[in-house]
């Protein structure tokens, strides 16, 4: 037992000493390397940036010490990558040429076939920053990589290099279970604009559930009317998630002609669909939407009411008039929502300014309006305004109304 303990102690002690040494050694080595690199880079950098900003024909290698050491090459690459993020135009092209001349593009292309996935992903990302057309072919090949992370970075890089990218693999990549991947793919697709619409329309029926949702998002954001037919059909999909996203997409496309479809969606049995439809109606606008939105203010679900009220505020003067009419609604929630939106839209403040108006008719109207809101017991905003409204006349008038017995 003693022997065992002594051995254990010796073992732990050795481990401990080893660990401490490891930490110290690792830190010393890293710091030394970093310090040397920093100093060397400060030496090289002016020449590199001078190259990037120059207009002549001298290549990058003429600006760097010869023969070029591996460390100098690495540091030059790092300096150029940093610069690549901040410039565009001619300097940007010169930086790309420098990556080609330094062999960085070639090395990164080799890394696209590395055993380790993060090396492949990093290579794809760097190639995107380098923007060399020589990398286009290998990146297309990398779109078939087994790791989703590599595929997406390759796609992005391709998007940067060619201005556009192979759309079909991207549409398929929408099926990636990670929303983060799907979002990045969607962003690339949205960037390609109308080009993606045809592919998405063709592929939609064969896509799995989550990918359809992403596809609807993308179609909505590209705002192509060509997709309207499909989105409208999706509004009748058996799955409520799809119906909700479709309603949202119609809102993004934003054509007033969709008001009828969305009004119908306001009667959907599932509340998320109704909430989305209300929100979308606020975006598409149009007179047809207002009656439906007023009705939606009485919905059982809080979110539908809230979205409908906000939509009414956003659809313009007609919506605003509807909100004012809603102050007399027989539904408490509807009345309170109306007050909140009238406050948010600063319509209450417009009436308040009229309290000090020279025109007696406008004054009367304002008083009537304020009294109505007081009867609804929503007086926080009014009380605040009675204290610090800019006009003294308004403050006094408001105070008088507020102090009146109910």
């Amino acid at each position: 037992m003693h022997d065992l303990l002594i051995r254990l102690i010796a073992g732990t002690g050795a481990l401990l000493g080893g660990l401490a040494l490891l930490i110290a050694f690792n830190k010393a080595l890293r710091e030394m390397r970093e310090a040397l690199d920093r100093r060397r880079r400060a030496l090289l950098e002016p020449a590199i940036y001078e190259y990037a900003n120059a207009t002549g024909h001298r290549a990058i290698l003429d600006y760097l010490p010869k023969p070029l050491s591996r460390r100098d090459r690495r540091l030059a690459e790092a300096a150029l990558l940093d610069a690549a993020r901040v410039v565009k135009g001619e300097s940007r092209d010169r930086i790309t040429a420098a990556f080609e001349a330094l062999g960085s593009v070639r090395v990164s292309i080799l890394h696209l076939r590395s055993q380790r996935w993060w090396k492949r992903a990093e290579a794809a990302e760097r190639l995107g920053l380098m923007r060399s057309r020589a990398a286009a072919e290998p990146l297309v090949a990398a779109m078939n990589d087994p790791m989703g992370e590599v595929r997406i970075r390759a796609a992005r890089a391709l998007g940067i290099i060619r201005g556009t990218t192979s759309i079909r693999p991207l549409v398929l990549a929408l099926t990636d279970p990670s929303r983060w991947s799907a979002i990045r793919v969607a962003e690339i697709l949205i960037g390609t604009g109308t080009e993606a619409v045809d592919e998405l329309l063709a592929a939609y029926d064969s896509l799995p559930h989550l990918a359809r949702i992403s596809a609807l998002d993308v179609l909505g954001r590209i705002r192509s009317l060509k997709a309207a037919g499909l989105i409208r059909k999706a509004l009748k999909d058996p799955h409520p998630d799809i119906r909700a996203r479709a309603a949202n997409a119609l809102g993004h496309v934003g054509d007033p002609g969709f008001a009828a479809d969305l009004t119908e969606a306001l009667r959907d049995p599932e509340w998320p669909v109704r909430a989305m439809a209300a929100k979308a109606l606020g975006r598409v606008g149009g007179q047809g939407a207002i009656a439906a939105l007023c009705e939606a203010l009485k919905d059982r679900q809080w979110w539908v009411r809230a979205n409908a009220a906000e939509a009414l505020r956003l659809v313009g003067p007609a919506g605003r008039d509807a909100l004012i009419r809603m102050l007399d609604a027989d539904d408490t929630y509807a009345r309170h929502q109306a007050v909140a939106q009238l406050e948010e839209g600063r319509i209450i403040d417009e009436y308040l300014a009229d309290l000090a108006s020279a025109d007696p008719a406008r004054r009367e109207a304002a008083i009537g309006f304020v009294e109505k809101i007081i009867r609804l017991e929503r007086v926080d905003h009014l009380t605040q305004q009675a204290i610090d409204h800019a006009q003294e006349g308004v403050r006094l008038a408001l105070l008088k109304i507020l102090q009146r017995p109910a």
Partner: protein
Amino acid sequence: MTPDMLLPEIVLAFNRWVIYYFALLNGVYVVLFLVSLVEVVRFVKGTFFSDYEQILKSDMTWPVSILVPARNESRTIVETVRSLLNVNYGQFEVIVVNDGSKDDTLQRLVGTFDMKRTDKIYRRTLPTGPVRAIYGTLEVPNLTVVDKERGGKADALNTGINVSRYPLYCSVDADSIIEENALLRVVKPFMEHPQEMVAVGGIVRIANGCEVREGRVARIGLPRKPLPIFQVVEYLRAFLSGRIGWSTLRSLLIISGAFGLYRKAEVIAAGGYDRWSETEDLELVLKLHETLNRRGRPYRIVFVPDPVCWTEVPSTFRVLARQRNRWHRGLLQSLWRHKRMILNPRFGVIGTIALPYFVLFETLGPFIEILGYAMLALSWWLGLLNADFFLLFLVFAVFFGVFLSVAAVLLEEISFRRYPGWQHLATLVLFGILENFGYRQVLSLFKVKAFWDFLLRRRAWGRMERQGFRTAPPPAPAARRI
């Protein structure tokens, strides 16, 4: 058998069991450390390029409501809100819930941001205490201040959940400092696993000794007083080799109240925060595990090893004792409340490993430790003590403790390296050694005391003593768990 023969028997048997217990405990620690090591290396390798800019720019990133419960935070509240409003994120709102402060917390906010009372309506999804008023401002459209009567932190958070608009919410302590990219870091897991992710926590670091300027950590440093330095080492161990390990094993039980991101719908489904709990953050995570497991829905609660938030820790024994007393009572309350989950295979790793670990080591551990010292004295008195063996065992125990502390420092060195200087490293290692001679034992005593208080159901609510960030003696937080 006569009593004087029975006693030595008991003492010897106890000593034997203590050795088994010690071996098991350290075995768990080593496993957790190794799991964390693998995870940290993977994490560092996998984040060669941060995608934060893309998350920031994408308008498909989920919007977040930041909830700040505040009670008597007048000195720091404006600074905190400013720094939160400057956080790097696309769409977010900040909701400060003034929990019946006795100082001028509310007035400061109202004065600084020109806040006005509004008739904003919200949904009372979770039952809460009465709300006095809601304030908004045209200057900063995404800032809302809710003024409510005092109801405790849990009640304030529930009110914040009710008022918030977005599907994710982030709870933030009013006196902690959030890193600029903190939200982007913790939202990433939600983006990666949108269906399953329910809650995400991050590393909380210690702000004592750091230079804080306008709600940002301008220069990282170590505290000057020894007590906070012990806590720095302790936090490194708890977060880097504790929570990362548990998170990888899919059984993370604690997300600090100081900073955590949650899916609102799931929190509401679980009933929100509990007023009875001393540590509502721990209770919430346990409750989420229980409800989600019962519904049989696949879910994830994870920890991102990125540092996200800086917070002040107690610098006096008195305040530390109060803080730890509360944490430990909270743990005991929650374990008692969820006792059906313990050793219940239905709850997977949580039921069979994580919770038993907390019962066996976190709650009973201090007793066994204190009892061990008593038995030691008894062994010596009975002449049973084998001095050689005892000394060797002691040396081994200390060595192992030091090893675990230093190992946590190693994890920090290979990953985030937030403490840049050599003197930082030396201090951390030195205190990693020193904490085995006194600090840990004191923590055990605190826990024993907490157990006693728990049994007596005493609710000694720690009153907070707060100072501003920039004033010399650091404030004394009580409402937080690491």
